């Protein structure tokens, strides 16, 4: 006598499909929300005349060079010269904290074609040295 082999049911239950989809969506949502937003905070004060220096440090950003108070230089020379200038500003005696803050203002004028990564590099250097950035733009 032949015994029939019982066929095994291997299909997953269809009712679990929506639960699987639900778990998958949660997984992808969590992955998507981990998108990194690390960066640098930057303080650009609103145009407040009380805190403006009469003779601020002037920086011009061009595509291939920088100007510090009109003098053309590269980024390394710019960093050392600006550091000296800002250190001198903070050492001044007999000045109020507001006056000292105004002395550390760096007026940044940028050529219109300078890309964002270069602008970011220069302004980050100024901030790291303790300068406060004031954007200078032509009024149209």
């Amino acid at each position, binding site marked *: 006598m032949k015994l029939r082999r019982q066929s095994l049911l291997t299909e997953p239950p269809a009712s679990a499909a929506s639960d699987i989809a639900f778990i998958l969506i949660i997984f992808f949502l969590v992955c998507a929300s981990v998108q990194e937003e*690390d*960066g640098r905070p930057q*303080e650009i004060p609103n145009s407040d005349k009380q805190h403006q220096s009469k003779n601020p440090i002037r920086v011009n950003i061009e595509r291939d060079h920088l100007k510090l108070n009109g003098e053309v230089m590269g980024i390394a020379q710019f960093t050392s010269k600006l550091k000296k200038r800002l250190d001198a500003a903070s050492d001044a005696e007999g000045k109020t904290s507001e006056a000292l803050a105004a002395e550390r203002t760096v007026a940044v004028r940028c050529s219109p074609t300078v890309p964002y990564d270069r602008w970011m*590099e220069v302004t980050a250097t100024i901030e790291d040295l303790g300068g406060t950035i004031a954007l200078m733009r032509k009024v149209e």
Partner: protein
Amino acid sequence: MILQRRKMNADVPSMAMGDIAFLLLIFFIILARVSDDSHLKVNKAEAEELVKPQHKRVSVAIDNKKITYLNGVRINPDDLGLALYNPDGGPGARGILGDFPPGERTVLLKIDKDTPAYLFEPLIQAVAKAGGELHHVLEEKK
């Protein structure tokens, strides 16, 4: 002779709960994507010593096609200032930053690294004028 009223079974089929949750999730994902800028293509500039933003109230982006977005929605750059803060607006219409106190006025800036200054500088100035606290979204320098 008293006829007994037949009881009506009005239970919601519990089998459908998974499907309902699934559809609700899809609905909320689509809603969230509208005010999200994760679909934008931005090549980030590099910098060192990056920090995480304290708040994520607003994001302003310029993508690799040099188009400006506010919270993932395309905007005319000239309208950004008033969209962020409108001092003449009535209650509830003072812009996205409205009357939030300092420390809660963070504006994330996601700008493509090749964007020229004539496009991104007006945005930075508009954010500063609106009292926004700038946070440049960058990539760690390797």
